[in-house]
């Protein structure tokens, strides 16, 4: 709406000032957050920090075992969630075809709504659930595995949503061509759907990783607090986010190291988000340029 002329009256000016001012305030808050953390934590964020183990309850030393545990937890969570999300997205995709029976379409609607609700569930509730189901009922106790399973539940709605979006963007013309040549559903999946949806599949995975890294509340009483080397998936381990929490609230004098950990976490998450957005934009732009007329 920038093409519309602004009024020279007072109200027009007030609105303009409010708009610019609000935006400036948001930028300033974000800038303040990043700058302050960088200022405090950058000094501690050294190579040694990354490759040493924590000492003195984290007041000294580094974060290597924690970083490793975090990576393991996220990888396991993805291993659980990604196939499940893909399967669900494929179900939603098939139920979306015009010739699908009504029952199937209603099942898909119910699934979507349930996933919406799941997406709104507070992370602490996931923690309670994970504690009751994985730690107690399954008998895994406070472990990397419990944490990963809980994380998988949390990122499922996000992954399904993104995968679904990816599949929806497969041009109808290509699906029709596949059907016309008698391609089976699995062959269509392998040769048409997956390649076409690949950018958003990757994006969904990237976003899920970022979300898992950022998660704390769900891990507090599923994966626990142990800051040593996890020897098996059934060992308790802490993620980087839990480490920040512990140092900030439970360890007196842990502030400096907490700043470093928080800064590292922030940078990784922001870089991941930026990469997903940037990469996706680039891929989609390249595709639309190369396939000019065929994509809508």
């Amino acid at each position, binding site marked *: 709406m920038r*093409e*519309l*002329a602004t*009024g*020279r009256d007072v109200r027009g000016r007030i609105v303009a000032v409010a708009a610019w001012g609000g935006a400036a305030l948001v930028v300033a808050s974000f800038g303040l957050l990043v700058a302050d953390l960088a200022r405090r934590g950058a000094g501690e964020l050294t190579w040694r920090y990354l490759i040493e183990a924590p000492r003195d309850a984290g007041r000294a030393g580094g974060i290597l075992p924690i970083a490793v545990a975090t990576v393991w937890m996220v990888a396991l969570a993805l291993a659980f969630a990604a196939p499940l999300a893909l399967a669900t997205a494929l179900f939603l995709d098939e139920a979306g075809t015009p010739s699908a029976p009504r029952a199937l379409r209603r099942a898909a609607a119910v699934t979507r709504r349930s996933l919406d609700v799941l997406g709104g569930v507070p992370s602490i509730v996931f923690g309670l659930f994970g504690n009751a189901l994985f730690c107690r009922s399954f008998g895994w106790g406070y472990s990397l595995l419990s944490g990963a399973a809980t994380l998988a539940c949390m990122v499922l709605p996000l992954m399904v949503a993104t995968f679904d979006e990816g599949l929806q963007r497969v041009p109808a013309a290509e699906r029709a061509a596949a059907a016309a040549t008698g391609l089976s559903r699995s062959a269509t999946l392998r040769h048409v759907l997956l390649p076409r949806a690949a950018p958003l599949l990757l994006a969904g995975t990237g976003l899920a990783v970022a979300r898992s890294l950022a998660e704390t509340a769900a891990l507090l009483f599923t994966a626990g607090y142990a800051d040593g080397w996890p020897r098996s998936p059934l060992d308790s381990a802490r993620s980087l986010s839990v480490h920040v929490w512990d140092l900030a609230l439970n360890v007196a004098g842990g502030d400096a190291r907490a700043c470093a950990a928080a800064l590292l976490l922030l940078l990784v998450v922001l870089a991941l988000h930026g990469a997903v957005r940037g990469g996706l934009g680039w891929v989609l732009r390249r595709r639309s340029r190369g396939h000019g007329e065929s994509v809508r």
Partner: protein
Amino acid sequence: MKAEKDCCAGRALGAGGCGRVAFERVDVAYHGRLAVRGVSLAVAPGRTLALVGPSGSGKSSLLFCVNRLIDLVDGATVAGRVTLDQRDVRSPEVDLLDLRRRVGMVFQRPTPFPFSIRRNLELPLQERGIAARSERADRLRAALVAVGLWDEVADRLERPATALSGGQQQRLCLARALVLEPEVLLLDEPCSALDPLAAAVVEESLAALKGRVTTLLVTHSLAQARRLADDVALLWHDGSAGTLAELQPTADFLGSPKSALARAFVAGAGR
């Protein structure tokens, strides 16, 4: 800037100017591709000019130049001069909002705002700064009377405008344009999206307004041009862009068209 001596004498509508529209060698291009080339024409105050021609000949583009609505179109560029009362509409001294209030426009499809009928008409008045409620009420009534809607909606001004029929909505849009007492009225095929009955009613309103406001009417129907217009301009796409093929008073255009193109057009399209 001086206005011409012959206008402004005995003018009933218009505040300040008299509504003389002129195009001087105007080109319009979209993303670099020329759509209209070298159009020059003038419309004297109070006269109605019908712009006819096949689709794609640039009729609507020219219309959009007068109130600079062409600025809203992505990638559109205009060369040449478009003047209102001999002042270039694109000169930096022109207040864009003031220009658009002096030039009213009705689009092909009725676009009532999702408010009550009253608010549809009052919003432009409030914007213009007419604070006195009585004056707004007077203008509102005058505009609705001018389009023949007053009797139909006087008792339900608070009802939503979207509840009106298509013909009524379009007349409301016309009233909304008139409520600001513009000097120029731009009509972009105002009847083509309406059913014949509604179209006829709208045309009646337009006929009643004839002579009071300078009007540029884009239309596909030569019959409508005959009924409503003083002059006809035929625009034709010559393979590269739209150009002005012929400009004459209506009777001459329909009775004895000068160019071969016009003759073919009248013969083929005249209904």
